[in-house]
């Protein structure tokens, strides 16, 4: 299933946050969206998943969601959003409960995603016992459990320290290689964008409009830290954003 954004503009009262976006998130690809803080990246993601209504324009699902998909548009949140009173298994089960699955089917899905995220040993742990990286892996497992058509990731690694971030990036690459998923990945971290994105969308500062869409045709598996092409790409993206970021930084917060 593809996701297409057409002529999307969005306002909060009179404040224009997004202006005339046109964008396609093609099946099986990770599209990274970067931009200075306050450019409406997170708003875009909320619009994509239907947590907010666009003021103008529309967002279309093209094609059918895969069979067995319980929640085609599924989020992974920056701060994990795990229920602290439920175990790892209970947190995953939460999102399967509304769908009236049989006990075996639920168990099969839970076991499968725990295995894919290497969490099988931590089934009965509660979030408080887990490190930040583990919590985010639980959140990713929960998202995968509903077999989403598009994963909407809102700065999923921003709350983690840099070593954990590296590990999780490898995990995400591994997950994608094993079973390519479609994703819109919001980040302010250029390194994450060039490591994970098949496409990088650069937004300008508010009102956010698309400055550039960069295609990266290096396979995910070859994008290690030492790859000089990636470094050049990251530098290029940074130059594109630098002035914007600086201006955004000096702006007074409004509203």
């Amino acid at each position, binding site marked *: 299933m593809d996701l297409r954004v057409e002529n999307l503009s969005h306002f909060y009262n009179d404040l224009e946050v997004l202006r005339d976006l046109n964008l396609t998130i093609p099946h099986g690809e990770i599209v990274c969206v970067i931009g200075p803080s306050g450019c409406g990246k997170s708003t875009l993601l909320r619009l994509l998943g239907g947590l907010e209504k666009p003021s103008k324009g529309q967002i279309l699902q093209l094609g059918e969601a895969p069979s067995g998909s319980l*929640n085609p548009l599924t989020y992974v*949140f920056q701060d994990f959003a795990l*229920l602290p009173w439920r175990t790892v298994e209970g947190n995953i089960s939460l*999102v399967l409960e*509304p769908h009236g699955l049989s006990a075996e089917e639920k168990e099969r899905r839970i076991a499968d995603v725990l295995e894919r995220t290497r969490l099988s040993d931590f089934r009965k742990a509660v979030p408080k016992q887990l490190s930040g990286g583990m919590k985010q892996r639980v959140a990713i497992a929960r998202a995968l459990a509903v077999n989403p058509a598009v994963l909407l990731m809102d700065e999923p690694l921003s709350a983690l320290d840099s070593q954990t971030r590296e590990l999780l990036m490898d995990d995400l690459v591994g997950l994608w290689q094993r079973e390519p998923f479609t994703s819109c990945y919001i980040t302010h971290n250029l390194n994450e964008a060039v490591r994970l994105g098949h496409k990088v969308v650069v937004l300008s500062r508010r009102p956010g409009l698309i400055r550039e869409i960069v295609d990266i045709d290096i396979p995910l598996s070859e994008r290690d830290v030492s790859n000089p092409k990636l470094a050049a790409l990251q530098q290029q993206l940074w130059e594109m954003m630098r002035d914007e970021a600086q201006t955004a930084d000096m702006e007074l917060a409004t509203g």
Partner: protein
Amino acid sequence: MSDISTQPGQQTPAPAAPDAASGKPVSFRGGGFAPKPRKLVGLAVFVVLIALWELGSRSGVISSLVLPAPSEAFGAFMDLANSGNLWRHLSASLQRLVIGFACGVSLGLIFGTAAGLSSVARAAITPLVSAIFPIPKIALLPLFIIWFGIGEGSKVATILFGCFFPMVIATYSAIDNVDRTLIRMGQSFSLSRAQIIWKIVLPAALPGILSGTRIAASISIILLVAAEMIGAEYGIGAYVLLAGNLMATDQLIAGVAILSLLGLTVNWLISRLENHFLGWRN
């Protein structure tokens, strides 16, 4: 906090001359400010105070008219127990307490949840709560007696009213403080509104609700005694009032001790509930 004054930092003598080779150890100045549980200390304070009191009474320093010895109060308690009246008083009090508290807390939960979830309900309920909550419910007791009769009704109603308002406030503020990202998460996985309330909002609000219950429990014990003092044949409050009228200070102390125990028991029960439902916090 005696720990603070005994830090070793002050004891290190200043060296005469700094020795470049051996160096000067960095003096310790951290630590303290970390209270640890010391169960025996609390018990010891009780034992020592009661022993001093007993000693004072026996030696005649404390006049038995002013304050009877603990042993006399205990004697009065045993008399009460042996006469069979203890159970009569206690059961009358417990019945009022349980009915009033349970109804007040349940109604408070229902109205508080409504105010926490619906804008209309909130706009309707909160001004009313703000207006009625500060009224000492005891002032309404004469009115309740007219409405519900001199019997159990007026006493239960007083307790119910006393519990209801703090419970409403605790519930809706607890719901206000539920992490909105958890609710967005529920919505993003297409959980229904009922499921979000039942599986996310209420469990997340439970810590606040339980501390509201604790406050409601204390209030209900205060109101129980007050209501029983105004008109009741049986009940701990009636027993204490009668003892006071007869200047039977030993019985009075015994009655007050029973009330203290009652309060401790209720608190302990709520702590057990907290441990059971909020185990995930530790």
